[in-house]
């Protein structure tokens, strides 16, 4: 399953990053903006995949980690007037803290109970956002004003509303998370996570405290998702409660399943694929969800392990 040489996977991942960098200069405006958004949401999917793909824990509450980052960063800018880096850090910290607490509580369960518990916590989070509408903007959400989204370095400054700056920021976050994910899953810790997914009881009998390992995975996963949410607030300037709804807990699951669970690049491919099916089909018909549904069914029939998962199984066994 794992090839001894680490060169191939790293070359592939760096190649993907280079390709995305090059695309910035050739893509038309519309696709340029869309791809920036997809990269940020792919980070969300990668965070989800960390837990679902590698540890085998199916959470239906990851919208709360994404929105912890989204609101953590957004509210810090809007109400506290924090700078972009401080707000980004605040978003990530909110996600890390929330995932630690939720992890300690939810990991007392497993399987279906884990799905339900995480979903309930996410629902509570969503309702709390609506309840404190005077600060959070309720279901209307809030816009992060353009002047607050400028990153200052002494005399020079980077305006995150500028398409190129936005694209490059999204790419920087995406690349960092991609390489971190790759390093984690290829590490000794990654091997333990997969072992827990495959047979938790056996892993315990090899001397592993599986609870602590799973808790660490929840925190890594939640923190990555929060980073995605914080970046979303700062790059696209909108903080809204719809991102905390159950739909946004299910979307990353779909993206990961489409692209291939437990593959490092699968989440990106799944997110890209899903976004473009919706984008293309909605141009032709208002019944685009029907076509999305059919595409999903075909995928499950012919690519049960997702796009990249099937490719790995049939042709490229070395894919991480």
């Amino acid at each position, binding site marked *: 399953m*794992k090839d001894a040489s680490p060169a191939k996977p790293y070359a592939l991942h760096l190649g993907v990053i280079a390709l995305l960098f090059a695309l910035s200069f050739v893509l038309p405006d519309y696709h340029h903006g869309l791809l920036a958004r997809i990269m940020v949401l792919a980070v969300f999917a990668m965070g989800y995949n960390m837990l679902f793909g590698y540890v085998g824990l199916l959470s239906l509450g990851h919208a709360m980690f994404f929105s912890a980052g989204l609101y953590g960063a957004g509210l810090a800018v809007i109400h506290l007037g924090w700078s972009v880096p401080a707000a980004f850090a605040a978003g990530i910290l909110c996600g890390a803290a929330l995932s630690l607490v939720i992890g300690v509580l939810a990991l007392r369960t497993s399987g279906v109970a884990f799905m339900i518990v995480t979903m309930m916590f996410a629902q509570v989070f969503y309702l709390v956002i609506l309840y404190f509408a005077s600060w959070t903007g309720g279901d209307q959400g809030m816009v992060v004003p353009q002047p607050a989204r400028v990153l200052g370095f002494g005399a020079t400054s980077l305006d995150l509303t500028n398409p190129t700056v936005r694209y490059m920021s999204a790419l920087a976050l995406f690349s960092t998370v991609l390489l971190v994910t790759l390093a984690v899953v290829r590490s000794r810790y990654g091997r333990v996570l*997969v*072992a827990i997914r*495959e047979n938790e009881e*056996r892993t315990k009998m*090899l001397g*592993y405290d*599986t609870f602590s390992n799973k808790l660490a995975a929840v925190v890594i996963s939640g923190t990555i998702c929060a980073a995605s949410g914080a970046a979303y607030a700062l790059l696209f300037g909108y903080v809204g409660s719809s991102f905390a709804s159950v739909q946004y807990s299910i979307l990353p699951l779909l993206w990961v399943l489409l692209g291939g669970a437990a593959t490092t690049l699968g989440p990106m491919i799944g997110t890209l694929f899903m976004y473009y099916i919706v984008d293309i089909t909605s141009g032709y018909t208002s019944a685009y969800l029907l076509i999305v549904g059919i595409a999903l069914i075909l995928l499950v029939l012919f690519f049960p392990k997702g796009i990249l998962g099937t490719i790995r199984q049939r042709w490229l066994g070395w894919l991480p």
Partner: protein
Amino acid sequence: MMPLLTTKGLSRNFGGLRAVANVDFAMMPGEIRAVIGPNGAGKTTFVSLVSGRIQPSSGMVVFDGADITNLPAYARVRLGVAYTFQITSVFANLSVYDNVALPVQRTLTDGRSKGAVRTGVMAALERTGLADRTHMLAGQLSYGHQRLLEVAMGLALKPRLLILDEPTQGLADSEIDNFIELVRDIARSATVLLIEHNMPVVMQLADRITVFNAGKILAEGTPEQIRANTEVQDAYLGATP
């Protein structure tokens, strides 16, 4: 010499069933001890209590002088109590290498061994004769090889006490001979507690035998003493002369 493992009044109830009842047990470092008894005698429950997979209803487990009754299973493993499963439970979807790398890296983290993961993995695989199958998926191994892999994983944990739960179950006769050699080899560096139904294997390997019946220890002694014990013959050995 102090016993490596002692249990005092160890009991476990499942509802109204006393699976293990008030067992006082002791074994010395370096010995090979076989636990035998009819089906349902409580052998697997007993070793599960020792390894920490299940909690006792009462009584205590002492390992190397320390009370480990309240330690979770993973902590006991780190102290050197390794358990290999009765039903083969290797990680079928992982490579043979990864299966053994998991216990090896654990002992490295605990500081109980040194060196690279690969060195430790290859050492355990060579001892069990699986070194040429490193990159196969564990699930693709033959049943006999999976049992060997299970033992390799136990070995890689650098155990002081290795519990083997019916290791020869489902093995062909030719494989069993190799297995006996392997257990003898393991016993040079670890104490072995063996649950086994195959009487020739027990008689060849064990220094001492403990016979369980209905959750209690019925008899204990050398293979000759057990063979001569009429109570044991009635309860279990039956046709075996």
